[in-house]
C-alpha cells in the first residue's frame, strides 16, 4: 500500500507557505484546541506517550526531555529550535521550512505552551536564506493575525518567536554550541552537565529541539497518539532500553542515485528499498558500493557485506530506524540522510572528503578533536597523493577510536562523528585502502583544495 505523506502533505500545494492555505487545511486548530481544553502537562503527556524521539540526530525522547525542566520554575524558560541543519547530505528541515513553515511554527507554539515558555529562538543556518525569508513572512502573518504575541486565541498564553541567523559553522548545530552562538559568543560547546534543561540559553532552563521534531509535535497533537504509533517500529522486546522508532520520518537521498529526493515514510524502511525504489536506484545503471545511512557522522554501510544471521541479506537491507544502522557498526540513524556511493568511486576520495569536513569544522576546544581531525586529514591527503603507508590504516582507526564523548575524551559529539566514518570505512573497505597503498597512484583529485579559516 502506498504511504500517504503527512509531514509533507502540503508541500506541492500552491502557496503552501502561506497562513491562509494552512488554516484552510485545518492548521492551528491543534494549538487553539490545546489552549481551551489541555493543560501544559497534558501536551507533554501526549507527546511522551506517542513515543516521539528527537529528529535532530540523537533520538532522545522529546516528551521526556521536556519533563527535565525544573518544576514550578518562575521563568523565563526558553525554546531553541535547531535549524542549523549542517550535517553533510541532510536537507529535510530545509524543505519543511521553505514549503510548510506554519506546520513547524504550530509545533513551536504547542511546545512552548507545554514547557511554559514565552519565547522561542529559531536558529537558522545562514545558507538557508530562502527558508529564513519564508519563516520571516510566516511569523509576520501570525503577528498580524494575532496568533503570536500576547493572549493568543484569547487565552493567557503569550509567545514571541525570534529568528536568528547562523554564520556558516557546523558546530552551531550542537545544542550548547547553538546556545553560545545565540548568546553572541564563539560557538564553543559547553561541558555537560548542566544540561540545557537546567541551565541553557542566558543561563535559563532551555529546551533545544529540531525542526522536524516540531512538525511531528503538530501532527501528534492533531492526529493523536494512536496515529503516531501506528507508524514505525515498536521497541525491541529483547532490549529493555529501546524506546521504539515510532512515527513518520523524512529521509533524504543524495549522491549516486537517479533521483535525489526527500521522501516521507514510516520509520523503519530498509536502506535497499529507500535507494532502489524511492531514490530511483543507483545512477547510470551502476551498483552501489557503500552507503552513508544518516549523515556523514554515522559512518558507512558496506552494500555487499552479508548481514549476520540473516540468510541472503546484506548490510544494504538494514532498516532505517533508530536501531538499524547500529547493528552494522554505524553510530546510529543520525539525520536519516542517505548518501549512495557507486562502485566506480574511490573510498580514498570519499574518506578524504569526510576528514576534510571534520577537520574544517572542529571548533578546536578539545585537543583530541582538534589535533585528531587534523591528523586524519593529513593522512588522507597522503593517501590522495598516492603516498599512503600500511601503518596509516591502524593509526587512522586508533585516532578515530580515541576521540569523542563515547571514549570520554572530548566535550561534544562532533568528534565521535569524525571518528565513525573513518573507522567504518577502514574496517569495511580495508582491502581497497591496502590496494591503494600497493599501487601508490595519486587520486584524480590529488590537488588539495585551499583551506580558508578554521571553521
Amino acid at each position, binding site marked *: 500500500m502506498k504511504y500517504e505523506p503527512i509531514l509533507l502533505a502540503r508541500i506541492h500545494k500552491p502557496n503552501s507557505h502561506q497562513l491562509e492555505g494552512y488554516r484552510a487545511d485545518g492548521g492551528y486548530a491543534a494549538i487553539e484546541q490545546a489552549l481551551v481544553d489541555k493543560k501544559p502537562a497534558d501536551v507533554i503527556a501526549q507527546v511522551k506517550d506517542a513515543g516521539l524521539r528527537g529528529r535532530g540526530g540523537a533520538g532522545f525522547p522529546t516528551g521526556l526531555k521536556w519533563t527535565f525542566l525544573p518544576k514550578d520554575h518562575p521563568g*523565563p524558560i526558553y525554546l531553541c529550535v535547531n535549524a542549523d*541543519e*549542517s*550535517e*553533510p*547530505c*541532510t*536537507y529535510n*528541515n*530545509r524543505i519543511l521550512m521553505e514549503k510548510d513553515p506554519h506546520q513547524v511554527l504550530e509545533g513551536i507554539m504547542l511546545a512552548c505552551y507545554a514547557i511554559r515558555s514565552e519565547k522561542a529562538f529559531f536558529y537558522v*543556518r*545562514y*545558507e*538557508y*536564506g*530562502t527558508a*529564513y525569508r519564508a519563516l520571516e513572512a510566516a511569523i509576520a502573518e501570525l503577528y498580524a493575525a494575532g496568533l503570536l504575541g500576547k493572549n493568543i486565541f484569547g487565552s493567557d498564553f503569550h509567545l*514571541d518567536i*525570534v529568528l*536568528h*541567523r547562523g*554564520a*556558516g*559553522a*557546523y558546530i552551531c548545530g550542537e545544542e550548547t554550541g547553538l546556545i553560545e*552562538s*545565540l*548568546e*553572541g*559568543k*564563539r560557538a564553543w560547546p559547553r561541558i555537560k552537565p548542566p544540561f540545557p534543561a537546567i541551565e541553557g540559553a*542566558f543561563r*535559563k532552563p532551555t529546551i533545544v529541539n529540531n525542526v522536524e521534531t516540531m512538525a511531528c509535535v503538530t501532527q501528534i497533537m492533531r492526529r493523536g497518539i494512536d496515529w503516531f504509533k501506528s507508524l514505525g517500529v515498536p521497541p525491541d522486546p529483547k532490549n529493555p532500553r529501546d524506546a521504539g522508532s515510532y512515527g513518520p520520518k523524512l529521509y*533524504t*537521498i*543524495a*549522491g*549516486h542515485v537517479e533521483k*535525489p*529526493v526527500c521522501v516521507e515514510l514510516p520509520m523503519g524502511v530498509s536502506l535497499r528499498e529507500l535507494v532502489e525504489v524511492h531514490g530511483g536506484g543507483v545512477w547510470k545503471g551502476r551498483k552501489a558500493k557503500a552507503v*552513508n545511512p544518516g549523515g*556523514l557522522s554515522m559512518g558507512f554501510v558496506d552494500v555487499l557485506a552479508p548481514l549476520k544471521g540473516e540468510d541472503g541479506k546484506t548490510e544494504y537491507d538494514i532498516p532505517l530506524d533508530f536501531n538499524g544502522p547500529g547493528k552494522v557498526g554505524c553510530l546510529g540513524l543520525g539525520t536519516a*540522510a542517505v*548518501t549512495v*556511493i*557507486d562502485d566506480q*568511486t574511490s573510498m580514498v576520495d*570519499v574518506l578524504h*572528503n569526510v576528514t576534510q*569536513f571534520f577537520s*574544517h*569544522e572542529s*571548533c578546536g576546544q578539545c585537543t583530541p578533536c582538534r589535533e585528531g581531525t587534523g591528523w586524519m586529514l593529513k593522512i588522507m591527503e597522503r593517501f590522495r597523493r598516492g603516498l599512503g603507508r600500511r601503518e596509516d590504516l591502524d593509526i587512522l582507526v586508533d585516532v578515530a577510536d580515541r576521540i569523542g564523548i563515547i571514549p570520554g575524551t572530548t566535550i561534544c559529539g562532533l568528534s565521535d562523528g569524525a571518528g565513525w566514518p573513518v573507522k567504518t570505512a577502514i574496517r569495511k573497505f580495508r582491502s581497497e585502502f591496502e590496494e591503494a597503498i600497493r599501487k601508490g597512484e595519486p587520486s584524480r*583529485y590529488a590537488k588539495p*583544495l*585551499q583551506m*580558508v*579559516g*578554521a*571553521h
Partner: protein
Amino acid sequence: MSVLSEDIKNRIRALLPKYPRKQAVTLPALHMVHDEYRHVSPEAVVEIAEILELHPSEVQDTMTFYAFFKEKESEKLGKERVWVCRGLACMLRGAYELIDHCEHKLGVHCGQTTADGKITLEFAECIGACDGAPAILRNDEHVMNVTPEKADGLFAEIRK
C-alpha cells in the same frame, strides 16, 4: 567620525528588545554591517561594541570564530558571494570539477574576489541542497544542479 551610518545603528538598536541580553545581538549586528560594508573593520567593531555595551574584544572574539566574516579592507567582499559546495553529495556529482571550472573562468582562487569587484568565489561545506548537487550558494540562495554552463550563466548575470 563614525564609520557606521545612523540608519544601520538604529537597525541594530531595534533588535535589542528581542533578546534578554545585548550581547545576543552580536551576530545579527555583524551580519548587517558585513552585508552592507562588505567587511567588518576594526572601527566598525568598536561601534558595534558601543551599542551592545561590550568591550570591542568581545565582538572581535566572536567575529573571528566565524570565518564567514571578512575583517580586512583587502579582503573586502565583491558585489556578490558565490560559494561552491564541496560536500560529499556534491563531490560525488562533480563539485571538485565545478570548483576548478569556476576558478578558471573567474581567474581567482576560492577566497578571492574578481578584479572587477563583482564576484567573491568561495567553497562551502554541505549547504543543504544535496537534492540539487552539485550546488552553489549565491549569497544566501541555492542554485541547484549546476553545470559549467549554468555557472557561466550565473556569472554573466551577476556581472550584467
